[in-house]
């Protein structure tokens, strides 16, 4: 078994999709729980250095969500979408960054049970255009989000 769970990202040129896979050392039930329990969800979705404000969160088929990442300077970045299907095996939802309104992507996430109480997550994101897809990879996300593992240390310290 590998010591560290590796994130695999596949983004082929000229395509409107991204595939992300990752394994977790936890049973599927718990990985799913971390996606639908708001108290757990806020602990891992927000990037480091940003306050995570969960404005609405209805993780059931047909429900909606909206959250805001707020940085120290007070800038707010809002995201919203709807949950189309929410089951332990499959989660389908739309995703829209309000700073780039009108460009909506769709995420299909499967959770697969592996031996030894492990779980494999596969996210398939589909964008409206190749430019939208490339934009999200190149720009949007990375600014200020690469502070390394400080957040990890904080949570670990709290658990002790």
């Amino acid at each position, binding site marked *: 078994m590998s010591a560290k769970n590796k994130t695999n990202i596949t983004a082929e040129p000229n395509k409107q999709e991204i595939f992300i896979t990752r394994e977790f050392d936890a049973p599927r039930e718990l990985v799913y729980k971390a996606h639908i329990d708001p108290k757990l969800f806020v602990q891992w979705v927000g990037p480091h250095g940003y306050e995570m404000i969960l404005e609405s969160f209805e993780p059931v088929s047909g429900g909606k969500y909206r959250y805001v990442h707020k940085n120290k300077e007070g800038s707010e970045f809002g995201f919203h979408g709807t949950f189309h299907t929410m089951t332990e095996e499959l989660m389908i939802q739309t995703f829209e960054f309000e700073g780039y309104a009108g460009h909506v992507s769709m995420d299909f996430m499967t959770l697969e049970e592996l031996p030894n109480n492990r779980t494999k997550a596969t996210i398939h994101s589909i964008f409206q255009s190749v430019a939208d897809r490339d934009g999200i990879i190149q720009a949007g*996300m990375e600014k200020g989000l690469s502070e390394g593992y400080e957040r990890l240390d904080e949570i670990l310290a709290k658990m002790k």
Partner: protein
Amino acid sequence: MARTPTTHDPFNAVAEPKRRQVLEALGVQELSVNEIVELLGWTQPMVSKHLGVLKQVGLVEERRVGRQRMYRVNAEKLKPIFDWVTPFEQFWNERFDRLDNVLRQIKKEN
């Protein structure tokens, strides 16, 4: 932005997951075709095919050692490609590391 065919464009060349596996293997050490065959468990023609593409776009370099050809990655050529996806990958790595912590925490509680 239009892309040139696989055989000219390093970005296209690494889009194929199998070629990334070859690069990963060569990232650790210089290898011969047979050593790659053994390491990845593929057929020799398959390894040669992917090596050929990687060589053509300059991501892999070849040198002769006696009767053998040895292959290694050309780090300089590879760097811009990694730079492109790295921040995005880092974003997801950090997010998933936090999820790992949450999972560890609730595993204890259950």
